[in-house]
Protein backbone atom coordinates (compact mmCIF):
# COMPACT_ATOMS: atom_id res chain seq x y z
CA UNK A 1 0.00 0.00 0.00
CA UNK A 2 1.27 3.41 -0.84
CA UNK A 3 1.48 6.26 1.65
CA UNK A 4 -1.33 8.12 -0.06
CA UNK A 5 -3.67 5.14 0.30
CA UNK A 6 -2.95 4.86 4.00
CA UNK A 7 -3.62 8.56 4.46
CA UNK A 8 -6.89 8.24 2.54
CA UNK A 9 -8.03 5.30 4.64
CA UNK A 10 -7.21 7.09 7.89
CA UNK A 11 -9.03 10.22 6.76
CA UNK A 12 -12.05 8.27 5.54
CA UNK A 13 -12.27 6.19 8.72
CA UNK A 14 -12.00 9.30 10.88
CA UNK A 15 -14.61 11.17 8.86
CA UNK A 16 -17.10 8.33 8.77
CA UNK A 17 -16.82 7.54 12.47
CA UNK A 18 -17.22 11.23 13.29
CA UNK A 19 -20.25 11.38 10.99
CA UNK A 20 -21.66 8.33 12.75
CA UNK A 21 -21.30 10.15 16.05
CA UNK A 22 -23.03 13.21 14.57
CA UNK A 23 -26.18 11.25 13.80
CA UNK A 24 -26.22 9.10 16.93
CA UNK A 25 -24.97 11.13 19.88
CA UNK A 26 -27.49 12.19 22.52
CA UNK A 27 -25.86 15.51 23.31
CA UNK A 28 -26.41 17.93 20.46
CA UNK A 29 -23.43 20.13 21.28
CA UNK A 30 -21.26 17.03 21.06
CA UNK A 31 -22.97 16.29 17.79
CA UNK A 32 -21.97 19.70 16.50
CA UNK A 33 -18.36 19.19 17.62
CA UNK A 34 -18.28 15.81 15.89
CA UNK A 35 -19.68 17.59 12.83
CA UNK A 36 -16.67 19.92 12.97
CA UNK A 37 -14.39 16.88 12.85
CA UNK A 38 -16.37 15.41 9.95
CA UNK A 39 -16.13 18.63 7.99
CA UNK A 40 -12.41 18.75 8.68
CA UNK A 41 -12.10 15.22 7.32
CA UNK A 42 -13.94 16.24 4.17
CA UNK A 43 -11.50 19.17 3.81
CA UNK A 44 -8.63 16.69 4.06
CA UNK A 45 -10.31 14.62 1.35
CA UNK A 46 -10.39 17.69 -0.88
CA UNK A 47 -6.67 18.14 -0.32
CA UNK A 48 -6.10 14.54 -1.39
CA UNK A 49 -8.07 15.37 -4.54
CA UNK A 50 -5.84 18.42 -5.18
CA UNK A 51 -8.80 20.78 -4.77
CA UNK A 52 -6.87 22.95 -2.34
CA UNK A 53 -9.04 26.01 -2.73
CA UNK A 54 -12.17 24.06 -1.88
CA UNK A 55 -10.37 22.49 1.08
CA UNK A 56 -9.65 25.83 2.73
CA UNK A 57 -13.07 27.17 1.77
CA UNK A 58 -14.56 24.09 3.41
CA UNK A 59 -12.82 24.97 6.66
CA UNK A 60 -13.55 28.71 6.44
CA UNK A 61 -17.21 28.37 5.50
CA UNK A 62 -18.30 25.11 7.08
CA UNK A 63 -16.27 25.06 10.29
CA UNK A 64 -15.77 28.77 10.68
CA UNK A 65 -19.30 29.86 9.93
CA UNK A 66 -21.90 27.10 9.50
CA UNK A 67 -20.80 24.98 12.47
CA UNK A 68 -20.58 28.09 14.65
CA UNK A 69 -24.09 29.08 13.60
CA UNK A 70 -25.34 25.57 14.42
CA UNK A 71 -23.74 25.66 17.87
CA UNK A 72 -25.24 29.10 18.51
CA UNK A 73 -28.67 27.84 17.50
CA UNK A 74 -28.33 24.75 19.71
CA UNK A 75 -27.40 26.90 22.66
CA UNK A 76 -30.20 29.37 22.03
CA UNK A 77 -32.78 26.57 22.04
CA UNK A 78 -31.22 24.22 24.54
CA UNK A 79 -33.71 24.54 27.34
CA UNK A 80 -36.42 22.32 25.93
CA UNK A 81 -34.17 19.63 24.61
CA UNK A 82 -32.41 18.40 27.70
CA UNK A 83 -29.77 15.89 26.88
CA UNK A 84 -31.38 13.03 28.78
CA UNK A 85 -34.29 12.43 26.42
CA UNK A 86 -33.96 10.25 23.38
CA UNK A 87 -32.96 12.11 20.26
CA UNK A 88 -34.41 9.70 17.75
CA UNK A 89 -38.01 9.39 16.69
CA UNK A 90 -40.15 6.29 16.48
CA UNK A 91 -39.15 5.15 13.02
CA UNK A 92 -35.39 5.24 13.41
CA UNK A 93 -35.17 1.56 12.51
CA UNK A 94 -36.82 2.24 9.18
CA UNK A 95 -34.43 5.15 8.67
CA UNK A 96 -31.43 2.97 9.46
CA UNK A 97 -32.65 0.30 7.06
CA UNK A 98 -33.22 2.89 4.36
CA UNK A 99 -29.72 4.29 4.82
CA UNK A 100 -28.25 0.81 4.64
CA UNK A 101 -30.26 -0.07 1.53
CA UNK A 102 -29.16 3.15 -0.12
CA UNK A 103 -25.51 2.45 0.61
CA UNK A 104 -25.67 -1.15 -0.59
CA UNK A 105 -27.57 -0.05 -3.69
CA UNK A 106 -24.99 2.58 -4.61
CA UNK A 107 -22.18 0.12 -3.96
CA UNK A 108 -23.90 -2.41 -6.27
CA UNK A 109 -24.30 0.21 -8.97
CA UNK A 110 -20.65 1.19 -8.63
CA UNK A 111 -19.58 -2.42 -9.00
CA UNK A 112 -21.24 -2.59 -12.39
CA UNK A 113 -20.13 0.83 -13.56
CA UNK A 114 -17.12 1.23 -15.79
CA UNK A 115 -15.93 4.36 -14.01
CA UNK A 116 -14.79 2.38 -10.98
CA UNK A 117 -11.26 1.67 -12.01
CA UNK A 118 -10.49 5.19 -13.24
CA UNK A 119 -7.15 6.60 -12.20
CA UNK A 120 -6.16 10.18 -11.56
CA UNK A 121 -4.78 11.95 -14.62
CA UNK A 122 -1.58 13.84 -13.90
CA UNK A 123 -2.02 17.48 -12.95
CA UNK A 124 -0.43 20.08 -15.18
CA UNK A 125 1.72 22.09 -12.77
CA UNK A 126 1.49 25.20 -14.97
CA UNK A 127 -2.30 25.41 -14.65
CA UNK A 128 -3.48 26.70 -11.30
CA UNK A 129 -7.06 25.51 -10.61
CA UNK A 130 -7.67 28.64 -8.54
CA UNK A 131 -6.90 30.89 -11.52
CA UNK A 132 -9.04 28.65 -13.71
CA UNK A 133 -11.87 28.93 -11.22
CA UNK A 134 -11.50 32.69 -11.01
CA UNK A 135 -11.69 32.97 -14.77
CA UNK A 136 -14.77 30.81 -15.35
CA UNK A 137 -16.68 32.28 -12.44
CA UNK A 138 -16.78 35.74 -14.03
CA UNK A 139 -16.53 34.77 -17.68
CA UNK A 140 -19.70 35.45 -19.68
CA UNK A 141 -19.12 32.26 -21.68
CA UNK A 142 -19.02 30.16 -18.56
CA UNK A 143 -20.53 30.57 -15.13
CA UNK A 144 -21.05 34.27 -14.55
CA UNK A 145 -24.80 33.82 -14.28
CA UNK A 146 -24.70 31.13 -11.56
CA UNK A 147 -22.07 33.23 -9.78
CA UNK A 148 -24.22 36.36 -9.65
CA UNK A 149 -27.36 34.35 -8.94
CA UNK A 150 -25.57 32.73 -6.00
CA UNK A 151 -24.82 36.17 -4.66
CA UNK A 152 -28.46 37.21 -5.06
CA UNK A 153 -29.51 33.96 -3.38
CA UNK A 154 -27.27 34.74 -0.43
CA UNK A 155 -28.69 38.24 -0.26
CA UNK A 156 -32.20 36.80 -0.24
CA UNK A 157 -31.18 34.34 2.49
CA UNK A 158 -29.77 37.20 4.54
CA UNK A 159 -32.91 39.27 4.23
CA UNK A 160 -35.20 36.30 4.78
CA UNK A 161 -33.46 35.03 7.86
CA UNK A 162 -33.23 38.46 9.44
CA UNK A 163 -36.96 38.94 8.88
CA UNK A 164 -37.72 35.54 10.38
CA UNK A 165 -35.36 35.63 13.36
CA UNK A 166 -35.63 39.32 14.25
CA UNK A 167 -38.24 39.89 16.89
CA UNK A 168 -39.23 43.54 16.46
Amino acid at each position, binding site marked *: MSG*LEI*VFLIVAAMTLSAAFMVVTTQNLVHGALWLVLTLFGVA*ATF*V*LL*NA*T*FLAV*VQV*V*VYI*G*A*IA*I*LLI*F*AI*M*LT*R*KVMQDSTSQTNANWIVAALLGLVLFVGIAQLLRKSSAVGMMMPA*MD*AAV*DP*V*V*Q*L*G*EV*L*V*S*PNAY*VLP*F*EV*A*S*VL*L*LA*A*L*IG*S*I*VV*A*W*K*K
Partner: protein
Amino acid sequence: MLDNWLYIGLFIIAAILIPAVAVILPRWVAPRKPNAIKQETYECGMETVGDAWVQFKVQYYIFALVFLIFDIETVFLFPWAVAYDKLPMFAVMEGVIFIAILLAGLMYAWRKGALEWA
Protein backbone atom coordinates in the same frame (compact mmCIF):
# COMPACT_ATOMS: atom_id res chain seq x y z
CA MET B 1 2.42 19.95 -4.49
CA LEU B 2 1.12 17.37 -2.03
CA ASP B 3 4.48 17.68 -0.25
CA ASN B 4 3.47 21.11 0.99
CA TRP B 5 0.27 19.66 2.36
CA LEU B 6 2.14 16.77 3.92
CA TYR B 7 4.15 19.39 5.81
CA ILE B 8 0.91 21.02 6.97
CA GLY B 9 -0.48 17.66 8.04
CA LEU B 10 2.67 16.95 10.04
CA PHE B 11 2.52 20.48 11.41
CA ILE B 12 -1.02 19.84 12.64
CA ILE B 13 0.21 16.75 14.47
CA ALA B 14 3.15 18.65 15.98
CA ALA B 15 1.03 21.67 16.91
CA ILE B 16 -1.40 19.45 18.79
CA LEU B 17 1.10 17.03 20.30
CA ILE B 18 3.52 19.53 21.83
CA PRO B 19 0.93 21.68 23.65
CA ALA B 20 -0.85 18.48 24.71
CA VAL B 21 2.38 17.34 26.36
CA ALA B 22 2.64 20.72 28.07
CA VAL B 23 -0.87 20.29 29.47
CA ILE B 24 -0.38 16.68 30.50
CA LEU B 25 3.03 17.17 32.10
CA PRO B 26 1.73 19.08 35.17
CA ARG B 27 -0.34 15.98 36.02
CA TRP B 28 2.84 14.60 37.55
CA VAL B 29 4.51 17.82 38.61
CA ALA B 30 1.56 19.69 40.04
CA PRO B 31 -0.36 18.75 43.18
CA ARG B 32 -3.78 17.20 42.75
CA LYS B 33 -6.06 17.71 45.73
CA PRO B 34 -9.61 18.15 44.56
CA ASN B 35 -12.33 18.96 47.05
CA ALA B 36 -15.99 19.81 46.78
CA ILE B 37 -15.61 23.56 47.24
CA LYS B 38 -12.66 23.86 44.90
CA GLN B 39 -14.49 22.01 42.15
CA GLU B 40 -17.52 24.26 42.35
CA THR B 41 -18.02 26.48 39.33
CA TYR B 42 -16.63 29.92 40.00
CA GLU B 43 -19.02 32.76 40.62
CA CYS B 44 -16.81 35.31 42.32
CA GLY B 45 -16.84 33.35 45.56
CA MET B 46 -20.60 33.21 45.94
CA GLU B 47 -22.43 29.92 45.88
CA THR B 48 -23.29 28.84 42.37
CA VAL B 49 -26.81 29.81 41.40
CA GLY B 50 -28.75 27.68 38.98
CA ASP B 51 -27.70 26.23 35.67
CA ALA B 52 -24.92 27.49 33.41
CA TRP B 53 -27.55 27.98 30.75
CA VAL B 54 -29.06 31.43 30.75
CA GLN B 55 -31.31 33.03 28.17
CA PHE B 56 -29.14 34.48 25.43
CA LYS B 57 -29.87 37.44 23.24
CA VAL B 58 -30.93 36.44 19.76
CA GLN B 59 -28.60 39.23 18.66
CA TYR B 60 -25.64 36.85 18.93
CA TYR B 61 -27.30 34.66 16.36
CA ILE B 62 -28.03 37.59 14.04
CA PHE B 63 -24.38 38.64 14.02
CA ALA B 64 -23.25 35.10 13.29
CA LEU B 65 -25.82 35.00 10.49
CA VAL B 66 -24.68 38.20 8.81
CA PHE B 67 -21.12 36.98 9.19
CA LEU B 68 -21.94 33.66 7.51
CA ILE B 69 -23.39 35.34 4.43
CA PHE B 70 -20.53 37.85 4.19
CA ASP B 71 -17.90 35.21 4.77
CA ILE B 72 -19.05 32.98 1.96
CA GLU B 73 -19.44 35.85 -0.48
CA THR B 74 -15.97 37.17 0.31
CA VAL B 75 -14.40 33.77 -0.08
CA PHE B 76 -15.72 33.57 -3.63
CA LEU B 77 -14.01 36.83 -4.49
CA PHE B 78 -10.60 35.29 -3.85
CA PRO B 79 -10.37 33.34 -7.14
CA TRP B 80 -11.51 36.50 -8.90
CA ALA B 81 -8.62 38.43 -7.33
CA VAL B 82 -6.12 35.70 -8.15
CA ALA B 83 -7.13 35.53 -11.82
CA TYR B 84 -7.07 39.33 -12.07
CA ASP B 85 -4.43 39.54 -14.78
CA LYS B 86 -6.45 37.40 -17.13
CA LEU B 87 -9.73 39.24 -16.66
CA PRO B 88 -11.06 41.83 -19.09
CA MET B 89 -12.62 45.03 -17.72
CA PHE B 90 -16.05 43.42 -18.09
CA ALA B 91 -15.16 40.60 -15.73
CA VAL B 92 -13.73 43.08 -13.24
CA MET B 93 -17.06 44.88 -13.28
CA GLU B 94 -18.78 41.54 -12.59
CA GLY B 95 -16.77 41.31 -9.41
CA VAL B 96 -17.64 44.90 -8.54
CA ILE B 97 -21.35 44.13 -9.00
CA PHE B 98 -20.85 41.17 -6.70
CA ILE B 99 -19.35 43.46 -4.07
CA ALA B 100 -22.18 45.95 -4.60
CA ILE B 101 -24.74 43.23 -3.90
CA LEU B 102 -22.82 42.50 -0.72
CA LEU B 103 -23.00 46.18 0.19
CA ALA B 104 -26.75 46.16 -0.46
CA GLY B 105 -27.13 43.29 1.99
CA LEU B 106 -25.18 45.24 4.58
CA MET B 107 -27.34 48.31 4.01
CA TYR B 108 -30.48 46.24 4.43
CA ALA B 109 -29.28 44.76 7.71
CA TRP B 110 -28.28 48.23 8.86
CA ARG B 111 -31.62 49.85 7.99
CA LYS B 112 -33.52 46.97 9.56
CA GLY B 113 -31.68 47.61 12.79
CA ALA B 114 -30.19 44.13 12.91
CA LEU B 115 -26.74 45.56 13.55
CA GLU B 116 -27.74 47.39 16.72
CA TRP B 117 -26.69 45.79 19.94
CA ALA B 118 -29.38 47.18 22.24
